[in-house]
């Protein structure tokens, strides 16, 4: 995808001779023997790993942690052979360095490198970001290298070839956007008018992150659903692919954590499992190469790949309640109460009608 160094040099009008001189120079700079020069030249002419810029907004770094848990493909394979992670805040050696020179702040170290990378790979890099974007207080709830994260992500998205939201925060706003959203956080898709891939999950399954990146590298853009999620990973409900589904069908349910039914591995539907409404690969792909997923470990799914799932609690309750001022009550209880009130009103009406009717009859006599 990326331009090779040689192509860049040619475009800049630099001669082959100059280019070779540069190659010799950087060979020395890297501390390599002069015999390595031809190889450096070759690399500069042909290198083409996909450049990736990975930004971090209001997040917990759980998505990056999930990324490095992948073993099929290994995160190390991706990092060394498929992509070139040119900017990130979790793994890279360099930090951002800023200092003042002639009254101006110089961006050096990793942030200086970022500026160069964006220039070099304009329109060709993949922009990956985890975390929400706070808009409150002019974006000053998240400041990176002295600038609001909001400005960085909007700016870098402009020149990206592909945008990829990793995690629920980047895709839907996530935990900081839960009621009352004190930082006024939003997903990147609210700010950027560009097609993007959403890989929600808190965090997403490691292989879902690396699988999406691998798909981009091998086959290009993955097929997406109406919400921008890769269909291969978000096409199915967890419920429809759950190994406990037969217990659901048979009406065999866990009523309380660790009851006898829980020991038998029955369906967690009644203690609030969000599997029936959550689209993710937990049921088919599972975690860590198929070892488990929350339901298999006896925990009701909290629907962490679902939009605004944080505000759909309590998690141990099957259905969301109806929110009245200061209280939240079960929809069915509201329904039954409403039915009772209606029946009462109708009975009163009927009695009134009866009296009235009797009166009319009396009038007739």
């Amino acid at each position, binding site marked *: 995808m990326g331009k090779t160094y040689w192509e860049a040099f040619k475009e800049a009008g630099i001669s082959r001779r100059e280019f070779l001189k540069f190659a010799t120079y950087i060979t020395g700079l890297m*501390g390599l023997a002069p015999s390595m020069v031809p190889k450096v030249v070759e690399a500069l002419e042909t290198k083409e790993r996909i450049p990736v810029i990975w930004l971090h907004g209001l997040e917990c770094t759980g998505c990056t*942690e999930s990324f490095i848990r992948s073993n099929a493909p290994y995160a190390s394979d991706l990092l060394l052979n498929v992509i070139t992670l040119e900017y990130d805040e979790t793994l890279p050696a360099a930090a951002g360095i800023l200092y003042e020179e002639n009254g101006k702040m110089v961006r050096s170290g990793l942030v200086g490198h970022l500026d160069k990378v964006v220039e070099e790979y304009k329109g060709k890099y993949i922009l990956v970001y985890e975390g929400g974007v706070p808009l409150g207080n002019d974006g000053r709830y998240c400041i990176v290298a002295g600038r609001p994260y909001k400005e960085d992500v909007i700016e870098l998205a402009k020149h990206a070839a592909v945008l990829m939201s990793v995690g629920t925060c980047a895709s839907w706003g996530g935990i900081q956007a839960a009621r009352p959203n004190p930082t006024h956080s939003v997903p990147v898709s609210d700010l950027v008018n560009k097609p993007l891939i959403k890989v929600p999950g808190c965090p997403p399954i490691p292989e879902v992150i690396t699988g999406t990146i691998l798909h981009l590298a091998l086959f290009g853009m993955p097929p997406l659903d109406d919400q921008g999620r890769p269909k291969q990973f978000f096409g199915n409900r967890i419920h429809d692919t759950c190994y406990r589904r037969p217990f659901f069908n048979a009406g065999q349910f866990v009523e309380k954590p660790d009851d006898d039914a829980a020991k038998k591995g029955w369906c967690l539907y009644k203690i609030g499992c969000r599997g029936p409404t959550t689209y993710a690969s937990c049921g088919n792909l599972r*975690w860590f190469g198929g070892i488990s997923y929350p339901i298999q470990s006896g925990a009701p799914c909290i629907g962490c790949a679902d939009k605004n799932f944080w505000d759909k609690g309590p998690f141990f309750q099957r259905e969301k309640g109806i929110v009245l001022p200061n209280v939240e009550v079960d929809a069915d209880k509201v329904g039954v109460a409403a039915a009772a009130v209606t029946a009462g009103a109708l009975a009163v009406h009927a009695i009134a009608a009866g009296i009235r009717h009797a009166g009319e009859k009396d009038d007739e006599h």
Partner: protein
Amino acid sequence: MAKRVVVDPVTRIEGHLRLEVTVDEKQNKVVDAISSATMWRGIEVILKNRDPRDAWAFAQRICGVCTTIHALASVRAVEDALDIQIPKNSNYIRNIMLATLYVHDHLVHFYHLHALDWVSPVEALKADPVKTAELQKAVIQKYGKIVELAKDYTGLKAYARKFPKATPAYFKAVQDKIKQIVESGQLGIFAPADWWGHPDYKKLPPEVHLMAIAHYLEMLDTQRELVIPHVVFGGKNPHPHYLVGGMNCSISMDDGNAPVNAARLGLVQTAVEIALDAINYFYILDLLAIADIYLNKYNWFYGGGLAKERVLGFGDFPDEPYKDFSKTGDYWNKILYHSNGVVHNFKEGWQKAKYEEFNKDSLEHVAEYVQHSFYHYTVGDNKPLHPWEGQTIPAPEDVPPTPWKFLDPNHKYSYSKTPVYKGLTHEVGPLARYIVTYVGVKQGHIKPTWVDEMVVKQIDMVSEMLGIPAEKWMLSTVGRTVARGLEAQLGANLNSYFLKKLYDNIKSGDTQVANNTKFDPSTWGPGKKRGVGMTEAPRGALSHWVVINGITIENYQAIVPTTWNVAPRIKNEYGEQRAAYEAAMLDTEVKVVKEPLEILRTIHSFDPCLACATHIYNSDGEEVTSFNVNSACAV
């Protein structure tokens, strides 16, 4: 002339951290330092009015690197408030998950977040693979004694499956790959190329660089296997599932669908064995090799900072289920790891240090200041507030307009508050825990458990190997990093110990993992219930404080390890005080002002977790709302 330089973003950490140091260029001395947390998410505001049974899920998202620890602190706090005692099995399982976290988090920190401050892939290219293989053998020979402290309690481990490869061909293959990457010009995570110009990268011989880089890659692939206990017991990692009252993972030896049965325990067993190997044969040996050279060859004793004066710990790993924290304080009767205490003045050796135990009666002395934080208190910014009564009202008008040039330390400059214990800032973390336990045992305040004894043995053994007294090597950036490695070794043992206890208890016929008598909120009764949940997170002492009113959370806050360390300065009746980061930076030399590698090293030795530090202040919901309305950028 003093020059000011900013490090922002500090990478290889969790979250967003900004450092500003003023360096005297002639003496390479740091004359002033600021550490500023630059993000706020407001999770504690969001936690208000929610179901306490869900709090763990919200709290857990404070940090994805030290995942599970906030969930653990949260369920402990809610159980403390509601008087729930968890069953034995869930106590063992939670301890295995915590020990697993120690092992994983410390190892990932050393190789993937800290190693590149010491070793460079560019230097590794100069190494001779044959000599590197020799070096690997020598390292095993020289520091291998410490591996004797490792113990497989289950007795099931046949042999060391993960063992360092000491062959030239292996190192050659790794070197070739690095060569290819460096030559391609696409350095990726090793970019930019000029980063590696710092003179300190020349300190270690090239062979050490190559060995460490090879292990960097190998451990990048191995680390995922270490957290498999989280996946078995909690369903996933990061962010496994917890339960107020125990754990979700029911145990049954009758049913193949059960979350835990013999086959599933086998997965945990394997992970625990791999952890023992990865820590003992890779992590500790590499760590000691680098530490030895830096301390003995280069006399590099910088970065001790606040640890020299005051450290704090809460203690952890309850051997058996405990009643509570805040009512009877039974937790502290049950713990194995007696890092619950405060030690003053360790710099003069354990004999002269002042030890004080931390227990139930200490809870009232914890408080937080907002003097230099982007928050206000209704009682005035100069007064500290106890976390149960704490508040956080963001002060948006005090956040300087962007772009930032330099922060003004005379005003508010961080999203972190300043926690204090008895009015004083303290350093927390593995180093703090090791100092507290060491001094406590040596001075005879603690009746040592096997954990405490192991801590003392490790410290004495390393002191002997290095030929340096404990108070000298420990109180430094290197010492902080070594203490973390030793604790990882302890974690691997604890893992195995509690797995054995779990086996034994299941064998005795007990399969209960949850106390579900109070699962239904209607059993909690009316009124206010206060609780605290404490734990020793990989990064230090962690406490979550909850007030439950009826069936919902009225107030929630956490004082997290990184807050203790990253906090901005304060001034109170005990004088002007700095927290650990700033103190440690002041205690560090900087050779090249525009490449403050030493600063990064020192800060990384704390394993910063900034998302922790910044989300976690409690806030008055109404105030926040009104602030939001006033904010000009509401889109």
